[in-house]
């Protein structure tokens, strides 16, 4: 049996005190000096781990506190209280919510999947990825027990083209070469970062992580520095068409290149293919109204991989209003299925992929794999304050990270994500992530369920705005 793929994880504590959801406040004034102080009874021993945060003139136990409220409810002097942390409220934005950010921090620190007690406490359903559920198998179909290692669930995906059919000559021998293919063991590649206080350390951390996981990192040529040379086999240079001619030396030694779409035609693609026959060509397609047709044209023109990009919150803007990346990817996938050529090409999706579940859901709607960016920054402790975009300093000094630490955090995050993928795949009874692609039969959609159940009972649903929030 081949060796099982495994991402090595190791605890990687944050460099700055993390921001907790709520703040504990206590006062000296009013303290009754009880013989048995409630703080000493804390079952998580939080109060003994107090240090003083000079910057905020407060104690740094907020991220350790588990919100049991026992001290608050038991203190006879009522001098302890707990309130929402104002800093927590300011984290991220409406898409990258504080909850998502904290969860990714936890995974990047521990490499473990988030587990908690009590039922789910969020919205019934919501916009974006939150309007679908994944399925599970029960009694009438077998599940797979992947996470405890009894069965092996494969997360390998292939990059590159497949032949629509084999052709044989008169003598019965297959004609032509099979197209080149590359396997990556996780359906995730690291995308160039759209923001952040970036430095050599950050790029090295990403490149080392990509190499360690045997996947790829996309690097725009302007950020391509000599220190990245050793990782070349796991880098995908991102070039404009013009840069292909000027950066020939850079392409030597890489396995995949990515080109920004600027009216890429068959003729141009075949010219690039002729110049670099051993390299897979990935084309970055900005998702929009016409991306289905563009994807079809590019597939026919011979591109190996299409990278379908939405903006960082997963929005796809067009003259007919905005759509979410999930729906846009679905329509590209379906266009290629209708044209009978979906199997010939590899599709990557990116933009708005914030959690492990989004990877599974992107694949269900038709992508082969995803490219992630902001979660990588979160792994590096980014708080998504967007100060860097205004040219201000980074509160957690992302630029000063040690590459080893950064690599460790990225590996932890992706290891945790992969384990979560295995959880959902196991529940669905699927042993191959390649089989999940486009498998909407293994998902349930809010609109369908509403129509099939409540629609029969209550009539017509009002406009979509009222869903979740």
């Amino acid at each position, binding site marked *: 049996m081949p060796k099982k793929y495994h991402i090595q994880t190791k605890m990687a504590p944050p460099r700055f005190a993390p921001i907790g959801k709520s703040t504990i406040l206590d006062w000296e004034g009013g303290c009754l000096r009880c013989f048995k102080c409630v703080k000493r009874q804390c079952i998580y021993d939080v109060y003994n781990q107090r240090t003083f945060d000079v910057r905020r003139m407060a104690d740094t136990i907020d991220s350790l506190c588990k919100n049991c409220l026992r001290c608050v409810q038991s203190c006879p002097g009522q001098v302890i209280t707990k309130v929402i942390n104002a800093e927590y409220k300011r984290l991220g934005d409406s898409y990258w919510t504080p909850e998502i950010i904290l969860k990714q921090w936890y995974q990047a620190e521990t490499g473990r999947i988030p*587990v908690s007690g009590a039922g789910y406490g*969020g919205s019934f359903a919501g916009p974006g990825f939150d309007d679908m*559920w994944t399925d599970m198998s029960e009694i009438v179909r077998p*599940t797979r027990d992947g996470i405890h290692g009894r069965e092996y669930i494969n997360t390998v995906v292939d990059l590159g083209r497949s032949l629509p059919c084999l052709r044989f000559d008169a003598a019965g021998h297959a004609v032509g070469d099979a197209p080149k293919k590359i396997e990556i063991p996780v359906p995730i590649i690291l995308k160039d970062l759209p923001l952040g206080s970036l430095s050599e350390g950050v790029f090295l951390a990403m490149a080392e992580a990509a190499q360690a996981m045997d996947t790829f990192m996309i690097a725009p040529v302007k950020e391509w520095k000599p220190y990245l040379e050793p990782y070349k086999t796991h880098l995908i240079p991102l070039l404009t068409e013009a840069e292909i001619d000027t950066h020939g030396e850079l392409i030597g030694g890489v396995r995949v290149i990515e080109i920004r779409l600027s009216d890429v035609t068959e003729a141009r693609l075949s010219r690039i293919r002729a110049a670099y026959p051993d390299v897979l060509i990935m084309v970055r397609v900005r998702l929009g109204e016409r991306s289905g047709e563009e994807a079809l044209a590019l597939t026919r023109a011979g591109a190996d991989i299409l990278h379908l990009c939405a903006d960082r919150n997963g929005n796809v803007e067009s003259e007919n209003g905005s759509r979410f990346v999930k729906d846009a990817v679905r329509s590209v996938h379906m266009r290629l299925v209708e044209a009978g050529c979906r199997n010939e090409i590899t599709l990557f999706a990116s933009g708005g992929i914030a959690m492990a579940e989004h990877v599974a859901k992107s694949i269900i709607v038709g992508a082969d794999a995803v490219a992630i960016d902001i979660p990588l920054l979160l792994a590096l402790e980014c708080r998504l304050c967007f100060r860097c975009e205004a040219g201000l300093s980074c509160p957690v000094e992302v630029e000063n990270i040690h590459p080893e630490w950064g690599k460790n955090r990225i590996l932890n995050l992706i290891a945790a994500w992969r384990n979560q993928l295995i959880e959902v795949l196991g529940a669905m009874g699927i042993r191959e992530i390649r089989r999940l692609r486009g498998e909407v039969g293994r998902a349930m959609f809010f609109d369908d369920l509403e129509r099939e159940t409540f629609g029969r009972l209550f009539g017509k649903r009002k406009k979509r705005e009222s869903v979740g929030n």
Partner: protein
Amino acid sequence: MNAAMQSEPERTAHVGRPEVRVTPSRFRNAIGKYILRRSKACVACGRCAELCPYGVHERSGKTMARPKDYRCIGSACEKNDFYCVRQCPQNALSLRLNPILEVLGDKRWTPELLISTWYMAETGKVPPGDMEYKVGDSGGGFDRMEFCFPTGKALDLPDDEFDLSIPLNKRRDGRPDLEIGLPVYGGGMSYGSISLYVMIARARAYQAWNSFTCTGEGGYPEELYPYDDHVITQVATGLFGVREDTIQRVRIVEFKYAQGAKPGLGGHLLGDKVTPAVARMREAVAGSALFSPFPFHSVYSVEDHKKHVDWIKHINPRVLVSVKVSTPTDVDMVAVGSYHAGAHIIHLDGSYGGTGAAPDIAKKNIAMPIEYAIVKVHNFLKEEGIRDEMTLIASGGIRTAYDVAKAIALGADGVVVGTSEMVAVECIRCAACESGRGCARGIATTDPELSRLIDEDWAAQRLINLFAAWRRQLIDILKKLGMRDIRELVGRTDCLRHLDYE
């Protein structure tokens, strides 16, 4: 033997209604929606104590005691003549919303739902004032549904004229015709995931209400023997603590195929949670981790499933069999399969149900919410012509009496609850059931010191009170709908309105 069992009268006839006794919080500082402060200007004239009908103000010796503001109805009181803040001659009282609400609860269990459940468990009454005790804030499902009460049909009858009992055996297969006094029984919570004291308290409360509690997959502690007639033995995939004896001493056995919070996933009890007591109960070795696999490794089809059911029925000829499943797309098929395998109860556990520990990705994403599953299964069983022979039980996100009624109106016969019980015994939903020594509030733990934070009499009374308050609300709903029996409500979706539909 079978015949003898049949002729034995079942102990399901009307039992006396359990007594409600006020059972306050274990904690000194109970949390309420409002904060009422008394300033130094107070001269202890006692006017407020005379005025307040909710027991917020009390005299303590020569001064006034600190206000019990968790009982205060807050700004809803302004219109009353007895509004203490306005009536105080010294202007010593001030009222405001409690800012702790911001850190309490979540969208499904809003702070107000938590506080109102605590209130019901303390007093057995429906919360007064402007407290939202009916729905949460999840923006869908039960939270966007409400009853439409017809005008002029309301019944003006005493509470005892209303029947909330439901049958659990509708198959007429010669097995006992069990009935439970409320359309509610307790979900499986294993010894190990909750403390023995909480287990006993649940059994007592359900005995008082003539209903059932469930052992969960952790064995059958001896301390539950006195409550045998009100305990369900759960047979789950790890088969922990399942013995001939534990099958034979009960009236219902539940097969747990999946749990709504983690459908399709197995369980994993960490080694250090396997204390000698837990190990004894589960017939395992102390200190070694226990896996509960998914699925039953002996069941890969409905035929295999029938074999399981037959096995239990053979070992205990008077037992009813319940099948607890999660809610995949084809949950309706699974339900029909269970019927053909001979089950009496099909128990659907929706995806937003509770757990002691589950991956967040599973809790949120895998399988569908219970609201859809009830409708699907109810309709499918009806189309197959077998709805009248199956008892359909729903769980996984039933938080309030209104959820119970809505689930029944959507097509369930009754419900199973879990989290509401935990909240009644002062769970705060911190979601840290599994960390460290277990639950800081002494509920979900086997730590000897922590579990002693709960007294079983106290907890049992809180649960009895909660169900008393629920009963009151359910009867109130029936009254307004002009029905006298909860069974009339099953599948009456015409009594419901969905706020997102035109």
